[in-house]
C-alpha cells in the first residue's frame, strides 16, 4: 500500500465515522425526545401487545375457549366475564376473551390474527367459538387514510420475522424503513411524530364540533360521577390485581350481582349525564369525519384484509362466525345506497370465507339508550344486555342449556 492510498483511506475512514456518528447522534436525540414525550410502540399498541403476550396463558386454560375479535366496539360491548358466568350457570364450561382493540383496523387485525393462529397452532390448541366483528366504520377509505401514517410502525410491531423478511425482499425500501422504525426508533415513525406535533401545534384541521353549548355544571357532575365510579370499584374489588392484559375490559365490574345498588345507580347517572345532545352530536360529527360512518365508502385493501383474517381464525377454530354489532339507529342511519354497499361487502365476506354472518345491528335486546356514544355500547348498561343476548344465541352450540326465551336475529 503506498502512502497516497493510505492517506486516502484515512480520509474516507473519517468520512465514514462522521456519517455513522452523526446519524447515530441524531437518532439518539430522536429517541430521547420520544422517550421524554412517552411515545413508544407500547403506548400506541399496548393493549394488543399485552394480549399477544397473554396468549400462552389463554391457551393454557382448560375450558373451551371463546374469542370475540374486533374493534373498540367489541372492547366496549362484550363482557367476557358475564359470558363465562352465564354459560357456567347453564352447564357449559367456557372461558371467553375480549379481543376488541381500539384503533386497530382490519389491516392490523390481520397481522395480529396471524400471530394468534401461529401460537395456537404451535400448541395444537383450538378455539371452540370465534366471533369476529365486521365493523363497517373501520373499513372505510377515510379510516384507511387516517391510519396511513402508522401502517409501517404497526406492521413492524405485529409482523413476524418471516413476514418482515418477505417485505424486505419484495420492497427493500419499505422493508428497511420498517426495520428502522421497529429496531431503531422504538416503533415511532416520523409520520406518527409529525401527526402528533401537527395536532399539538394546531396545524391539523379542527375536529368538527357542533354549536351546541357546553353545560359546565353537567361536565362537573360527570367528572364527579367518574371519580365515584372509580372509588366504588376500589371498594367492591379490594383484592383487584390488574393482570398484564387489561383485565378490566374482560368484563370486570359489569356483573350486576357483584355491584351494590348505589354503584348501579352511579352507572345509570353517569351515562345519563354523559349522553347529552352536545356529546352525541359532536361524537357523530367526529365519527363521520374520521370514519365516514354515514356514507361507508369502503376501502378495498381493508375489506380484503378482513377476509384474510377470517381465514386465519378458521384454521384454529371449531366454529367461526362474523358478527355485525348493534348500531345506534338514532344516530347512525343508512340510506338505501349505503345499506346496499354494506350488504354487498357482507355478501362478499360470506362468499369468500364461507362463514355465517350474523347481523346483530338491530336486535330487541339492545336499545339506543344503551350506547355511551353514537357507536359504542356503554359499560354495564350496554355490554351486559348484549353479552346476555350472545349467551342466549350461542348457548346451544357451546353445549349449554338453552333459555326458554330464545332470541331471534
Amino acid at each position, binding site marked *: 500500500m503506498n502512502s497516497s492510498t493510505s492517506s486516502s483511506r484515512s480520509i474516507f475512514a473519517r468520512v465514514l465515522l462522521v456519517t455513522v456518528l452523526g446519524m447515530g447522534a441524531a437518532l439518539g436525540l430522536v429517541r430521547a425526545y420520544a422517550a421524554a414525550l412517552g411515545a413508544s410502540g407500547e403506548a400506541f399498541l399496548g393493549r394488543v401487545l399485552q394480549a399477544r403476550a397473554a396468549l400462552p396463558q389463554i391457551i393454557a386454560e382448560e375450558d373451551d375457549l371463546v374469542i370475540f375479535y374486533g374493534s373498540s366496539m367489541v372492547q366496549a360491548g362484550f363482557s367476557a366475564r358475564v359470558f363465562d358466568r352465564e354459560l357456567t350457570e347453564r352447564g357449559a364450561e367456557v372461558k371467553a376473551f375480549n379481543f376488541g382493540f381500539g384503533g386497530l383496523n382490519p389491516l392490523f387485525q390481520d397481522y395480529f390474527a396471524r400471530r394468534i393462529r401461529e401460537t395456537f397452532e404451535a400448541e395444537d390448541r383450538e378455539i371452540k367459538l370465534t366471533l369476529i366483528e365486521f365493523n363497517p366504520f373501520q373499513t372505510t377509505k377515510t379510516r384507511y387514510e387516517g391510519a396511513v401514517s402508522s401502517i409501517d410502525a404497526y406492521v413492524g410491531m405485529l409482523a413476524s420475522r418471516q413476514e418482515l423478511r418477505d417485505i424486505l425482499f419484495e420492497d427493500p425500501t419499505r422493508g428497511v424503513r420498517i426495520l428502522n422504525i421497529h429496531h431503531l426508533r422504538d416503533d415511532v415513525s*416520523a409520520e406518527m411524530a409529525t401527526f402528533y*406535533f401537527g395536532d399539538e401545534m394546531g396545524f391539523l384541521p379542527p375536529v368538527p364540533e357542533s354549536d351546541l353549548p357546553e353545560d359546565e355544571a353537567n361536565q362537573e357532575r360527570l367528572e364527579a360521577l367518574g371519580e365515584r365510579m372509580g372509588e366504588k370499584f376500589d371498594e367492591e374489588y379490594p383484592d383487584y390485581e390488574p393482570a398484564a392484559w387489561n383485565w378490566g375490559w374482560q368484563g370486570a365490574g359489569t356483573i350486576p350481582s357483584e355491584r351494590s345498588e348505589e354503584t348501579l345507580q352511579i352507572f345509570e347517572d353517569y351515562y345519563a349525564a354523559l349522553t347529552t345532545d352536545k356529546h352525541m352530536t359532536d361524537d357523530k360529527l367526529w365519527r363521520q369525519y374520521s370514519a365516514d360512518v354515514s356514507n361507508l365508502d369502503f376501502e378495498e385493501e381493508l375489506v380484503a384484509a378482513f377476509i384474510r383474517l377470517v381465514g386465519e381464525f378458521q384454521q384454529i377454530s371449531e366454529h367461526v362466525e362474523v358478527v355485525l354489532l348493534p348500531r345506534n339507529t338514532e344516530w347512525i342511519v343508512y340510506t338505501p345506497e349505503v345499506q346496499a354497499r354494506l350488504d354487498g361487502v357482507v355478501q362478499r365476506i360470506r362468499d369468500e370465507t364461507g362463514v355465517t354472518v350474523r347481523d346483530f345491528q338491530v336486535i330487541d335486546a339492545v336499545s339506543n339508550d344503551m350506547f355511551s356514544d353514537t357507536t359504542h355500547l356503554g359499560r354495564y348498561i350496554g355490554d351486559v344486555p348484549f353479552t346476555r343476548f350472545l349467551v342466549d344465541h350461542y348457548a346451544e352450540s357451546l353445549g349449554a342449556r338453552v333459555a326458554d326465551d330464545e332470541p331471534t336475529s
Partner: protein
Amino acid sequence: MIFNTPIFYLFFLVFLSVYGLVLGRRRPKVYFIIVSSLVFYGAWNYRFIPLLVGSAVADYFIAQAIGRSTDPGSRKRWLTLSIGINLGILGLFKYADFVLESVGDFLGLFGVAADLPTLAWVLPVGISFYTFQSLSYTIDVYRGDMEPRKGLAEFTAALSFFPQLVAGPILRARQILPQMHDLPVPTWANVKRGALLVTTGVLKKTAADLLAIPVAKAFDSTEPVSLLETWTGVLAFAGQIYGDFAGYTDMAIGLALLLGFQIPLNFNLPYLAVSPIDFWRRWHISLSTWLRDYLYIPLGGSRNGGRFRNVMITMLLGGLWHGAAWTFVVWGAFHGLIISISHSLTKVKGLALFHENPRWWIQTAKWAVTFYLVLLGWVLFRAQSLSDGWAMLGDMHGLGAALPEPSGIAGRVLIFTLVTVAAMHLMDRAVLRGGWTAELPSWLRWSRPVLFWLFLIIGQALCLIIGEPSNEFIYFQF
C-alpha cells in the same frame, strides 16, 4: 431509492466503505461506481438500465467518431445521430403520448374524431437529466470545446454517477469526466461542506413535504378554497418546489463532496431575484445554462434582433423539458415573455432609474414584482390543467366566484409557509458563505466546530422526527 430514506443511508455506508476503504486502485473504483450507480438506478426500475447504459455507450463512441473525423459533414452527421438518439429516447418516452393526444385534440377542433393510440409507457426516472448531460458531451466535442476522452468505463461512470443521476444537477462532461479520471480524495473542508449540504438538503426536503399539505388544499381540493388559503397554497408551492428540488440537489452535491467530487451549486437564493432574468440565473442553474449554451446561443442569442424569438423558443422548450403537458408549455412561454419584457424595459430611458440602482426601495420593488410574477408562473406549473390554472389565477385576484371564509388554521399555515420559505433561503445563504458559524462574532469563534456539528446533528434529528408519507421528489417526474 431516495436520499432521505434508511435504505439509501445503508447503501451509502456500503458504498463509502468499499469505495473508500476496500478498493485502492483507480480502475476497480470506476467499475464499482458504475455497478453501484446501476443498482441505485435499478432500485426504481431495473428495466431501464439498458437505456441508460445504451445512451452512454452510444454517445461515447459517437464522440470518438466526431473526434477522429476531420470532415465537417461527417462530424455533423455523427452529431445529428447523437441528438437523434438522445432526443429520440426522450421524445418516445416522454412526449409521444402528449403529441398524439394533442394531435387528437387538435383534429377534434375540426370535428375529426381521431382516437389515436397512446403508448402509456412508464417514464424512466432521470431521463431528462442524463440525456441532456450525455448530449452536452457530444456537442462539446463537435464544437471543439473538449477532446473526446478515452475510457468508456469512465464515461459511463460519469453519466450514471448516482448522486446526480436522477435529478441533476445537469453536469457538463468537462466538469465531471476529468474528476472521474482522477477520482479525487475529499479534503476535510469538503467533507464538512458536504455534510452541511446533505443536512440543509434534507431539511429543505422535509420542509417541502410539509408544505405539500397547504399546496394540496389550494390546488387539489374539490371544494372552493378561501382567498387566504389560495394565496397560501401558491406561496407554499413556491416553497415546496424549491425545497424539494434544491433540497435534492443540495444532497446530491453534498454526497458527491463526501466522495471527493465537486458539483457546482444549482440554486442561488432564487426568490431574492430582482428580475425574471435574474431569477433564471439563480434557479436550476444547470438547466438554464445548458439551454443558454446549447440552444439559445446556437439559435443566435440576442444578435440580429432575434432575442425575443430565441428567448421564447428557449423558454418554451425549457417549459416542455419539465413535463409533457400544456401547463408546462404555457409556463415556459410565460417566463419567455416576462424575460423578453424585462430585456425591453432595460432600453426604456424613462425607466433608467430602475436599472442597476442599488437603492433599497428600488430593489425591494423589483424583488416584489419579480416574486409576484414567479408565483403566477408556479400556478400554471402546478395546476392540473390550464383551465384550473386560469381559474386559480382568477381566484387569487378576486375575479372568480365568491370564495368561502378561511378555516381557523389558515393564518398559522400562512405564517408557517412564510417562515419555511425564508428559512430555506437562510440555509442557502449559510451554505454560500461557508456555514453560518463563519459569521459568529470573534469572541464566539472558539465554539464554531461545536456549533457546526451540533447544527448538523440537530438538523438531521429534526428530519428524522418529521415525516409526511408519500411525498416523492417532484423533479423525478421530469
